[in-house]
């Protein structure tokens, strides 16, 4: 466990040493503040469009951080050949995968805390309220979602050769699932036949990332999500992440590491 935590610590240090997070955070903050300075029909109590824009930017930024940070972990270690002394420590390949996953996931969590604090502050400046319950639920589900994404990208980084192709493919998969994942069953029913059955099988197999996007609850003040559903989504996300990590380990343990 110490090895895993040490590896995770290195990844977290990498996040705050690199400029990606700062650039994305400043861009999110700037765009949000520019939008916030706009006044529509002399009404300064309009806030939902601002929440919407800010949360959208947070989602985009967090996905970029999660995918790009994770995609370069193993290829960078291989290219710089630091993976060999690392595995000779001795650190097992399973520990390496777990450490990289934990590091990337925790780094995403830290970034999310900063982003959501900024979101809460901006919202409070207009609404004069801190609905902490729904903020916590939204942040937690967002983090669980990023856990699945990090595990998926880690699996991709042991399958695909280049980090760029891995990142691109993972972005397409994640965005595709978020937009269409929940509707594949309806499309499958309309298609019918064997293609419908295949699509239905895909629908059951893919990670349902769309569950974790609860922006509408936050933007439109719908109140808290059912805690049972929140716990269910958390369990599903953790199990799916574990499955993807297991798959990554299965591929990685037999992989030759020579460049």
């Amino acid at each position, binding site marked *: 466990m110490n090895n895993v935590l040490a590896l995770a610590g290195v990844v977290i240090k990498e996040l705050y040493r690199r400029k990606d997070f700062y650039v994305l955070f400043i861009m999110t903050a700037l765009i949000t503040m520019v939008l916030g300075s706009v006044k529509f029909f002399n009404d300064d109590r309009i806030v939902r469009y601002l929440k919407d824009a800010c949360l959208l930017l947070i989602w985009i930024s967090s996905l970029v951080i999660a995918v790009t940070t994770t995609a370069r972990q193993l290829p960078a270690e291989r290219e710089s050949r630091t993976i060999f002394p690392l595995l000779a420590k001795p650190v097992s390949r399973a520990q390496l995968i777990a450490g990289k996953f934990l590091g990337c996931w925790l780094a995403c969590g830290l970034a999310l805390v900063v982003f959501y604090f900024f979101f809460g502050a901006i919202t409070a400046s207009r609404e004069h309220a801190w609905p902490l319950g729904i903020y916590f639920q939204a942040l937690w589900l967002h983090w669980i979602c990023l856990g699945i994404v990090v595990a998926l990208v880690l699996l991709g980084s042991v399958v695909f050769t280049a980090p760029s192709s891995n990142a691109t493919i993972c972005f397409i998969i994640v965005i595709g699932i978020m937009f269409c994942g929940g509707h594949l*069953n309806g499309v499958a029913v309309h298609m019918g036949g064997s293609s419908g059955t295949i699509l239905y099988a895909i629908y059951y197999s893919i990670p349902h990332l769309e*569950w974790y996007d609860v922006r509408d609850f936050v933007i439109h003040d719908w109140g808290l999500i059912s805690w049972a559903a929140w716990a269910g989504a958390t369990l599903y996300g953790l199990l799916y992440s574990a499955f993807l990590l297991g798959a990554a380990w299965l591929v990685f343990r037999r992989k030759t590491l020579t460049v």
Partner: protein
Amino acid sequence: MIRPALLLVFVCCVTLATQWAPVFESLEARGGRSGSPLLLLVGDSRRLFANQFFVMADVYFHSGYYPTIFDARKKEGPSHLDVTEQEGGDTARSGRKVVEDDEKFMGTPRDWIERFGRNFFPTVHTHLQGGSAREIMPWLKLSAEMDPHRVDTYVTTSYWLRTRLDKADEAEQFLREGLRANPDSYDILLELGRVHFYNKKDPRGARNIWELALDKWRRQNLAGENPDPHVQEEILGELVRDDQQSGNLKQLLADLEELDKATPRNAVIEKEIQDVKAKLAH
């Protein structure tokens, strides 16, 4: 060798720029574009954006409860934003009122994933009430920015501004912006007249505007442009209301007779005409 080549390319660029700049300027002037960087960025696709932003206003009006492209949607018909509805019901602190769902676009869940997934997005049909309707305004404003010739946007925005947000001045200013972009729009004039009549308590000003609206409607009708007959009825209806309020029976009779022509065999109007004629006879 490279330097002269680069210089030549630069000279070519400058020559082309001087050649093409007037052409693009005339194209922009013909298209009636404003110099807004946003509009320049999106180009002619702005009309698509304008429609999308109008839909976004409707999404906000329903607090996120809205069909996606994958859901069965009610065919054609106005969005809820266009429809005048009665105030009332329990709005509580959320600024929402639950309404009876006549669309039920979601249907029953097909499987456990869909059933469970419904915990994570709004599944109750509500409408924003009272002051909360202000939240739709940014999208309507953006829609008008994107397509200044979309008359519906101006009329809808003004309706919400003057009826729910008590912002008659802003409504008038916005309608006048719309009128500058659409000088022949009788819809905008009808709504502008309503701002004067109902909110600014200026019946004379309202009457002048409605008469102008009616005049524009008639001209377009004569020119064979098929103006919306329902709007003519609305304009005449407002003129009749003004006559009733002012007690000008002769004008009321004239307006009622014209309204009768526009909506033939309407028993209520015919009875009203008989009543006014009887009053005039006395």
